[in-house]
């Protein structure tokens, strides 16, 4: 097809749109009314003459008028919550009555719940639903990334903006102390293994969910309260995310092809400004002078330090950030075929993606195949299968926690240094010529990729022997193979003698056998449903790794060609859960709804006597608007309340309960054994009690809706790596100790507003969560690292820091013990809480929280005649960020790059500044302690995405013999409004909830520009 064939009409339409809608029509014409199935008028319904731009909007009485037309014509009537309706009209026709049929999608919206589904009206829990579609899909890799800012009560954070980086998803706060605070992911009934997607922590981890294909997803249900999640029992404390993939529908087959491509760019490079060479040299030499003077070193002393000069005086500084970043191109292609007959339905999907990150060597390649098929074999028997094969390769760059991390090693260089010698060879890091690792060398001379192959499959058969009774038996598997490969060739600083390969393999497989019987009947005004089931899931992992060194040349890149094998590991790990579960629900006239669930889980991770946990829940709903006394048919109102108990056993070792004598303690090449664990026979389930109350209300027939929930979640028997005195032989023991409380509110506002022909869909969500550790060992502070501590009464993740009290202005102010340690006027004054003159651990205090007071998102879609504009914001308010990255470039007189602001305003004498300390050579840590001057406000509003799309009208697509065509332009992460001076307040070096909010040099989330097209026929 020639491009011009569809560009012409498109241009014409665009023109019409731009110059406005012509209003001058002939008198007379068609007058009609629009009413719903109950006879109520539908104000705001739009009536359009098909194939033209002529339209009208129904008034408060549902009355509209269309100008007279010359030929026979068809009108299309649309109204939110109702099916579009067409009616043929003659040119001389003067009146018409339209009765709209309710759209079952709205009325009978079906919500997927654990082991089944429910009509929205019968849902008594806090369940959020997200349907990925053309309007809201982003350049995301994992399903959780898609949900960022979309769901009240859910926050999604990442370690960095590198492709495929590890994520932290929290639903209603952190309910556990152990690292694993992630919700349980269930894809088409298969609880996923969510171990890290990478095997070697390369300064950051990878998410294991990026391998999934997002375009296969039909809907994502987020089970937030215990009553909805408790059916998943012991794995549900942190919420459950149910992902349902697309199924075929009865009817003509549909083929859909979509492509988009674009560019990832490093966002807002100039947000952080480093000092230029002139400033740097001045500050450094001032630091040297201060040092020599303070230490009493004269030029004849071997310890005397000399000044430095810019060896490239007059030449421009190196653009270190430019050296490592690029605009990264990407392409996504999705193809799907869906269709079916009355008996057999199929969905076949395929996707391919190639993407470059903003750091030059960061890429991914991803391919997915999917087949869902189901068929009714006889009247009482049907069978089907959901199968998907997935592959992703991630070419990694070292993250912020590794010595070879690329971003930090670039921007930390002295501004005048060069990456390459005149000969083209690298300057080597850690020398006087280049003070940090050479980032060009780090990137070029190493190869690092992780390949994940993952098969998700289930086969099932449904038997319905009696009316209302259904028996489903299924077998499912989640099998994945991961290869993690790193090659430091002979030119890399980490190359050992002549190159080093660390190759790790993991095969992971989980088998799930499940039998579920369900029964559903209506007895008069009673709706009754019940379900009972049994499942057994066994997961085993087999790992091995090899550390091979010394290769003939960098061209040899397999472990087989190594001369030295410096290490090899291998292990097997298994665990299983056996479960019985049931649910019963009853509703009277859809007014009063009662649901109850029960689950019993037995886990191999605990000693036999502590193996079983029981997790009940009950919930109630009252559809007030169904009551006889309710006379506002345009308002739907439901109140809900629920209680449930859930458990958690994640984040603990498969054999944590047992005392063990471990192997591998070899000496002199003889095998040895040792006491590897004390074990804890009393280890048992961590449990949480959660209460939830909320209401759903919608006005004007669903045009405006409010969903509100308040909850309280108490966690008991927290699984905690209790620190122990090392005289016990170990520094910690896995224990059930302590309690925690989360409480909060969630609010979602939805609006579907028609302003003339303009349709505005908007959704705003807000969450507030408060976390408090209510008991642990005792009331003492437990310091976790330099930035965080746990204390009863405080939040998990609370910052624990020294307090910055300004700058010592006179030597006389410096307390004696600090003076002895080298503190002088111009150095930082840390608050001495116990007043003993010594700054030590006793002088740290709980300084703030990394968790926001409120956070959420606001999405908007404006539609007019095929044009669409989507604008999506995310925000968080009140979260503090510890800017760890700043500790480097604010050490004035140290050998690294410095921040321009600090280099220009440092302390020069009494009264000069109370913020920026003096430069001092030989950094001895005294001015960059982990203190409140690096604890900054991370509140932000982010323009997360802007989409501009055009859907070709049906008269044009019909001409083109296709069903639909959509073109769009999208930008992501276009603006960040925040006082935080770093690149990205949302990137955290750790995703552990007790250690979050520390921002090091993680690569910030990219700004994305893309162009795409979706065609269906």
């Amino acid at each position, binding site marked *: 097809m020639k491009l011009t064939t569809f560009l012409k009409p498109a241009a014409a339409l665009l023109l019409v749109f731009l110059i406005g809608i012509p209003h001058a029509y002939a008198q007379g014409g068609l007058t009609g009314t629009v009413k719903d199935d109950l006879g109520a008028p539908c104000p705001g319904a739009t009536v359009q003459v098909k194939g033209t731009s002529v339209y009208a909007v129904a008034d408060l009485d549902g009355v509209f008028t269309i100008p007279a037309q010359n030929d026979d014509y068809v009108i299309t009537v649309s109204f939110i919550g109702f099916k579009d309706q067409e009616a043929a009209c003659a040119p001389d026709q003067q009146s018409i009555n339209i009765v709209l049929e309710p759209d079952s999608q709205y009325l009978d919206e079906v919500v997927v719940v654990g082991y089944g589904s429910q009509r929205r009206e019968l849902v008594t829990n806090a369940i959020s639903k997200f349907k990925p579609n053309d309007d809201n899909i982003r350049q995301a890799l994992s399903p959780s990334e898609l949900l960022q800012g979309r769901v009240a009560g859910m926050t999604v954070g990442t370690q960095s903006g590198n492709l495929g980086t590890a994520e932290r998803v929290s639903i209603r706060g952190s309910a556990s102390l152990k690292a694993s605070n992630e919700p349980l992911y269930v894809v088409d009934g298969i609880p996923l293994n969510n171990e890290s997607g990478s095997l070697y922590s390369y300064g950051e981890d990878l998410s294991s969910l990026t391998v999934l294909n997002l375009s296969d997803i039909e809907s994502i249900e987020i089970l937030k309260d215990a009553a909805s999640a408790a059916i998943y029992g012991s794995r549900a404390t942190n919420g459950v995310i149910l992902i349902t993939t697309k199924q075929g529908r009865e009817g003509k087959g549909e083929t859909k092809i979509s492509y988009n491509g674009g560019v990832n760019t490093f966002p807002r490079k100039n947000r952080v400004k480093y000092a230029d060479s002139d400033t740097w040299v001045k500050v450094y030499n001032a630091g040297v002078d201060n040092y020599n003077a303070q230490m009493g070193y004269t030029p004849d002393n071997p310890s005397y330090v000399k000044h430095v000069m810019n060896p490239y005086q007059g030449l421009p500084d190196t653009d270190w950030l430019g050296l490592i970043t690029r605009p990264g191109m990407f392409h996504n292609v999705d193809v799907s075929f869906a269709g079916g007959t009355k008996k057999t339905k199929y969905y076949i999907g395929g996707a391919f993606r190639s993407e470059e990150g903003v750091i030059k060597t960061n890429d991914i390649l991803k391919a997915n195949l999917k087949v869902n098929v189901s068929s009714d074999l006889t009247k009482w028997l049907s069978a089907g299968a959901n199968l998907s094969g997935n592959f992703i390769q991630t070419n990694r760059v070292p993250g912020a926690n590794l010595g070879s991390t690329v971003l930090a090693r670039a921007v930390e260089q002295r501004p005048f240094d060069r990456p390459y010698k005149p000969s083209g060879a690298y300057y080597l890091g850690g020398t006087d010529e280049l003070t940090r690792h050479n980032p060009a060398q780090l990137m070029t001379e190493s190869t690092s990729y992780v390949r994940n192959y993952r098969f998700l499959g289930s086969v099932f058969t449904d038997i319905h022997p009696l009316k209302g009774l259904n028996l489903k038996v299924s077998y499912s598997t989640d099998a994945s193979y991961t290869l993690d490969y790193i090659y430091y060739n002979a030119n890399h600083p980490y190359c050992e003698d002549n190159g080093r390969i660390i190759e790790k393999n993991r095969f992971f497989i989980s088998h799930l056998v499940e039998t579920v019987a369900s029964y559903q009947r209506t007895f008069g005004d009673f709706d009754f449903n019940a379900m009972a089931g049994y499942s057994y899931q066994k997961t085993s992992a087999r790992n091995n790794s090899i550390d091979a060194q010394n290769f003939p040349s960098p061209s040899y890149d397999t472990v087989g060609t190594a001369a030295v094998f410096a290490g090899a590991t291998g292990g097997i790990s298994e665990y299983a859960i056996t479960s019985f579960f049931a649910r019963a629900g009853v509703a009277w006239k859809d007014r009063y709804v009662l649901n109850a669930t029960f689950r019993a889980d037995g886990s191999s991770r605990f000693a036999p006597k502590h193996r079983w946990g029981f997790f009940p829940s009950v919930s109630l709903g009252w559809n007030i608007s169904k009551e006889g006394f309710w006379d506002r048919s345009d308002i739907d109102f439901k109140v809900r309340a629920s209680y449930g108990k859930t458990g958690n056993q994640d984040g603990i070792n498969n054999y944590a309960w047992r005392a063990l004598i471990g192997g591998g*303690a*070899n000496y002199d090449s003889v095998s040895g054994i040792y006491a590897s664990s004390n074990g804890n026979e009393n280890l048992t389930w961590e449990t949480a009690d959660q209460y939830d109350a909320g209401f759903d209300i919608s006005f004007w027939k669903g045009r405006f809706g409010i969903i509100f929930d308040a909850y309280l979640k108490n966690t008991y028997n927290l699984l905690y790596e209790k620190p*122990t005195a*090392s005289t016990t032989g170990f520094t910690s023991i896995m224990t059930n100790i302590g309690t925690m409380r989360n409480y909060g509110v969630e609010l979602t506002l939805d609006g579907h507003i028609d302003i003339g022909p303009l349709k505005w869909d908007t959704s705003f969500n807000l969450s507030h969560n408060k976390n408090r550790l209510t008991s642990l060992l005792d009331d003492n502070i437990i*310091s976790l690292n330099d930035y965080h501590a746990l204390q009863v009464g405080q939040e998990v993740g609370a910052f624990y820091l020294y307090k910055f009290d300004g700058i010592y202005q006179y030597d006389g102010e410096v307390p004696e013990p600090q003076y002895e340690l080298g503190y002088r006027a111009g150095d930082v004054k840390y608050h001495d809480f116990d007043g003993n003159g010594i700054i030590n651990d006793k002088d740290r205090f709980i300084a703030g929280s990394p968790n926001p007071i409120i956070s959420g998102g606001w999405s908007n879609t404006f539609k007019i005649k095929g044009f669409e504009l989507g604008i999506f914001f995310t925000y968080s308010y009140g979260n503090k960020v510890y800017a760890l990255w700043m500790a480097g470039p604010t050490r004035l007189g140290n050998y690294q790059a410095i921040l321009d602001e600090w280099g220009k305003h440092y302390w020069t004498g009494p009264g000069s500044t109370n913020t920026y300390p003096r430069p001092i050579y030989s950094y001895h840590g005294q001015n960059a302690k982990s203190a409140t001057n690096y604890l900054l406000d991370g509140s932000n509003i982010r323009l997360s995405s802007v989409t501009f799309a055009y859907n070709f009208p049906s008269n044009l697509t019909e001409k083109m013999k296709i069903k639909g065509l959509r073109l769009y332009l999208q930008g992501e992460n276009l603006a960040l409004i925040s006082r935080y001076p770093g690149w990205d307040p949302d990137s955290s070096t750790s995703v552990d909830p007790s250690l979050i909010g520390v921002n090091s040099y993680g690569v910030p989330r990219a700004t994305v520009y893309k162009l795409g097209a979706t065609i269906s026929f």
Partner: protein
Amino acid sequence: MKKILYTILTLAVVTSCSKMLDFHPHSAVAPETVTEKDVPQLRVGMYWEVQELPQRTSYIIEDLLGGNCTAKNSTSTIALINNILNAQSEIVADAWQGAYKALYQVNNVYSIAERLPEGDLRNKVLGEACFFRAYIYLQLVTRWGDVPLLTRNTVDDVPREKAEKVWEQILRDLDSAIALLGDSADIYYVSRDAATALKARALMFLGRKAEAAVLAESLIAIPRYKLDSFENIFRNATNTETFFAFKCANEDKSNISISTLFYSYNHPNKGSYVYMPAPDVMTMFEEGDLRKEISITTLDGLNFINKYPSGQTGTDPFIVTRLAEMYLISAEAGGVERGIGRLNDLRNARGLESVYPMTEKAFQDAVMLERRREFVGENLRFTDLVRTGRAVNELGIQEYQQLLPIPEAELQNNSLLAPQNPNY
């Protein structure tokens, strides 16, 4: 139809059998299955654990605190010392926790080996366990003073014991080791001679110099041991000086990679270059000193400690005791009159002329300088200075800094450890 239902129900019941939740851990076994017959493997594990658990910085902490090193890009030793000497220091925590975690393994092996029938195996394993216990407590008591004393494992909190009691235990263990042990297969296993050498060192701390000298001389008298070249000691596995060294072998997956802390990436040995020799270490060797080249080196203006050459993730053996120390113990104990011979024996072997200091002070200064030259990078310096009362002056530290702080985490987890060592 019914048949299918029954089949499914039966399946459900059968599969729920509790055996399905029992798994064998594959890489470990339950302790109750470990018996006397496993002692040979437990013994190997004890060597590995005592070697590995203290982490690599524990093997150079005395050099870091003893003014032999500065941090990279600094010329000041006191800055590094002040940085390490605080209760939050990871280096201090690793040294303390490593010692006690290793002690746990030693005590465990000891209590199982006690059940062995009398015989060579029992003697050997108990002797080695006693040696290691003494080796661990020697580090603890000289660095921290009063410390918890355990000869049997317990999960209870243990208070600190007076240093004298700890010293009694050290000597008791060393005497047992000397009585139980014979010669060893090679330098990577503990022998009677290694125990004797460690006892000589311990006695010096207690000021029982004459007894130490007797032990030192008894070792010097053994014909098998001779002062050897640094090339042989630090570059070759075989030498005639070493009594005992941890093998820290790459093939055992040792993590004691000291080397990387000392070299930079432009040096062929490659490393992350965390510590460099102090300016006065670079100038302390006299002309002609055969030790210099193996002890320190310079490349492109950067200085390196050169005793551990394996490079970035490589590991080198760590020498716990060797003959040269016996010469210097004998010299120090003998004083200017009787000790000068041993001092000059060592100097001559290292390519240096004899010296003849006139006063006791000048002689003791010469011995200490020789100890510094001989053992730079061998983890002896800090407590040498403290033992001889030189630390405050030579290092510029405060009086209280002669004892290390107890790691904050330990104080938190065992309330009986309070109070902290003064001024921390």
